[in-house]
């Protein structure tokens, strides 16, 4: 009995630094965010209570909806590309021949590069006069005049950014899919080979159903990641033209920091956090159901 109590206290002792850290740097900011969102808050003047004004203001803020809609659109375009593309790459490279292993490593390499740095790299590649993409398209006769990819036409900017982000993150889903595919018991696939099932039949009837949980998981990670997109837009378009490519996080950033409307920024952060939470919960429910 004495030992049991002692171990409880010891356990709490070992846990306390991490718990205190999470309380100080996650729970407290969360509460603070709620509190700040009910105030008119800047660094210069003392905060004043405004109730839910910041939230109603957001609902009537045209840019709030532009940013939200744009982020949603970006997420809806990029997620299927990442999931279907990543899955096809996983099917292609899940075998263990040396060439496939090398391909896997190469496809995954951009994942460990920073999104900020990769965005700078693609900012250069897509540059109108100095970029290799225009040079290549002109030299192969696809275009006759240099194309202005970034910052002038919202759609063209978005597609260019999607290309860069797909390059950067497609290997992430691929690796998780490979893990799931390789975890399928050998007997299952062998039985289907004996039954004479072709490759795509095996994919549709066996491999895909058995890896569905991972597909849903990667979809969740990809949706949440895309809803929180910032670096690539900050660097490649800075939200231009006319803030049409300013994402939700970008909008929070603009209000909180350059403009120092911290109360409004906190309210926007709250809406953002709740949106993410809603997506997470829906997706987790779906995952659970599909798992039986």
């Amino acid at each position: 009995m004495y030992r049991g109590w002692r171990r409880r206290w010891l356990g709490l002792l070992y846990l306390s630094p991490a718990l205190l850290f999470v309380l100080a740097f996650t729970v407290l900011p969360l509460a603070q965010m709620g509190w700040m969102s009910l105030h008119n808050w800047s660094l210069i003047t003392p905060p004043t209570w405004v109730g839910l004004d910041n939230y109603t203001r957001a609902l009537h803020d045209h840019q709030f909806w532009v940013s939200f809609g744009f982020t949603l659109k970006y997420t809806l375009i990029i997620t299927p590309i990442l999931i279907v593309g990543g899955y096809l790459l996983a099917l292609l490279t899940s075998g263990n021949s040396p060439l496939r292993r090398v391909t896997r490593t190469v496809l995954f390499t951009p994942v460990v590069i920073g999104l900020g740095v990769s965005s700078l790299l693609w900012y250069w590649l897509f540059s109108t006069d100095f970029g290799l993409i225009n040079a290549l398209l002109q030299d192969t006769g696809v275009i006759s005049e240099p194309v202005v990819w970034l910052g002038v036409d919202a759609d063209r900017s978005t597609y260019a950014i999607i290309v860069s982000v797909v390059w950067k993150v497609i290997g992430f889903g691929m690796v998780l899919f490979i893990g799931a595919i390789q975890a399928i018991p050998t007997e299952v696939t062998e039985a289907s080979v004996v039954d004479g099932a072709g490759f795509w039949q095996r994919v549709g009837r066996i491999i895909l159903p058995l890896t569905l949980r991972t597909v849903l998981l990667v979809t969740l990670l990809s949706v949440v990641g895309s809803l929180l997109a910032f670096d690539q837009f900050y660097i490649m378009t800075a939200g231009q033209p006319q803030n049409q490519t300013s994402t939700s996080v970008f909008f929070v950033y603009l209000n909180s920091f350059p403009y120092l409307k911290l109360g409004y920024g906190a309210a926007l952060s709250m809406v953002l956090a709740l949106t993410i939470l809603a997506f997470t919960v829906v997706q987790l429910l779906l995952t659970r159901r599909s798992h039986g």
Partner: protein
Amino acid sequence: MSQVTRVAGKAAPGLDRTVEPAGRTRRRGYLIGAVCVVLCTVMLLPLIASLLASVKPTAEAAATPPTYLPDAVSLDSYQRLWNYQQGLPTYLFNSFGTALLTIAFTLLLTVPAAYALARFPVPAKELVFVVLLLALIVPYQALLTPMFLTFAKVGLTNSLTGLAIVHTAIQLPFSVYVLRNSFAAVPRELEEAAIVDGANSYQTLRKVFLPGAFPAVVTVALFAFIMSWNEFLGALVMMSNGSKFTLPLVLAAARTETSLGGTDWGMLQAGITISIVPCVAVYLLLQRYYVSGLMSGAVK
């Protein structure tokens, strides 16, 4: 963790096996090989192009239209980067400093916590675990506004320690999760043997659990390094003083600041190359740990 060993070694189940005629199978093999080569080329081209652009002489790096291959090799761009504003050493120091502090904070906080969660009869353990994983569902992007306010009051903005705290908060849930699972997998007999030998709980942690879960500790340190080295938004918010910029910040600033007089593309490529090298190097060296971390961290 079991999938991981398969990634490294065992053949994929039956994906290559078919009952088709040998000729078709071989043709398909060539096709797959060709697709793999094309994919590798496409993925590597941007990196190679950036590397090549970074060693172009100054005039060539700013040429329109750009050249595909450098006419001559020169380290001018690296030299300009070395002397850019506060100088490259300052930015490298800031980036490495923040990353090392993040690794230290993360390990110091999560190793004991994971040990307690794996092996101690802590009251309300499930609740504690959920609190520790809270940051998984609360995006840190949303927490930066209040954190900035607090940090500004206590002097943690424009501080490597402050930024490392933000990065630790981001990395903590993943680390606790991975370490707890690894500690839980350490055989009870080893722990009991150590206790019989008179080891106290701290000695057991050091002599049994840390060696036993060494790969997980490497994984946690590796992820903390890569995340901190690359992280952008937190650094952008917390660092306003140019002398405290991390590498990604100074490069992003260099892109906008010089854009009036024309971006220094050569220098930008030199900076990109230098930012990429440490991440790719540690990833290639510790690939096994990275992939296993990805699997055990993501498959909840």
